[in-house]
């Protein structure tokens, strides 16, 4: 696993897991890998994954069944989606709008491109 962003690795793993939930690769009430299995798969220190799972538990995206393991919570998808939407609105959209107006894109053009993208 190559970690490229400037964020701490345990936060990058949070994002990777949240993306899996958004893509429905990991679905609600599904059991997710143990701390050790994920650490091995990602070639990171198990303590890093412990922190990742702590954060996901705080957000109630996953929960721990004692003695059994970690599971995706029932509300995980909506929690993650709300948070990512909020971040997208606050962080990515302003940049996007700036470029649209800078490059004189019309909304019709954007809408056409978006339709093409969705077809792929």
């Amino acid at each position, binding site marked *: *696993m190559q*970690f490229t*962003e*400037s*964020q*701490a*690795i*345990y*936060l*990058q793993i949070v994002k990777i897991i949240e993306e899996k939930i958004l893509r429905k690769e990991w679905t609600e009430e599904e059991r997710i890998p143990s701390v*050790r299995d994920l*650490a*091995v*798969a*990602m*070639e*990171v*220190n*198990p*303590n*890093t994954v412990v*922190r990742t799972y702590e954060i996901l538990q705080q957000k109630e995206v996953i929960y721990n069944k004692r003695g059994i393991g970690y599971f995706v919570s029932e509300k995980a998808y909506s929690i993650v989606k709300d948070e990512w939407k909020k971040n997208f609105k606050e962080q990515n959209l302003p940049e996007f709008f700036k470029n649209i107006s800078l490059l004189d894109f019309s909304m019709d053009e954007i809408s056409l491109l978006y339709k093409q993208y969705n077809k792929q």
Partner: protein
Amino acid sequence: MVEITNLYFTYSKRNKLFENLNLTLSEGHIYGLLGKNGTGKTTLLSLVSGLLFPAQGKIDVSGKNPEKRQVDFLQELFLVSEEFYVPNVSPKKYAALYSFFYPRFDEEQYHFYLKEFDVDPDHPMHKMSMGQRKKAYISFALACNTRLLLMDEPTNGMDIPSKSQFRKLIASLATENRCIVISTHQVRDLENLIDTIVVLENHQIIFNQSVDAISEKLSFVSYNGTNATEQFLYEEIGALGGKGIAANQSNNPSRVDMELLFNGIISKKDKISGLFTTNI
């Protein structure tokens, strides 16, 4: 698990190597022992293993003095040396000869590791390449399941897939009651495994901090062109841009660039250590 207090050590009268060195290592961690050539990384590991004796000061490993080389001390310790001797036998035979010394040795695990590393258990070790022999030796070391595992440049001589395999094995081995110390120059190989950075320089341990603490206190920035905004504690300028270490002003923990950090600690020790109030 390891407690070193006021350690002095010297190979010759004129050149002292360690002077009043102090270091504590606990279980549940993977330490990265970093230092320039000749700063004494290998010597320090040898002292902890009881292969060398301190001139002054004390080394305590789980209540035992390494100098005494007691059986119950040695069976819970494995030192993976950078240069090592193995007799001309197969890995299978090697385990039959030496696993006796390690009560927690697990034969099944050993064969699993050999397989993961693509090493033939029946091939004579003297006929193996350097890299293969090292992997056989490391497989044995890991399968001994000692509570203290010291490794001197373990990834040297390993090919690219083996390094990845090595990281997976270490991640699977790191447990709460085990202490792993890896001395290395290849920090990039092990960056995501190491959770505490220990830097040896100028006869002492000049830095000993967890990666968590570092990522909260410092941020590692790379930029294109010239830097006008950041106030760097340490900076490396290249042809097209550069990178630097700044105090982390945000609430976002950064990803630690260990190579950059190491260079920063060596050249701007006071500026960087100053941000950490509890440097051990």
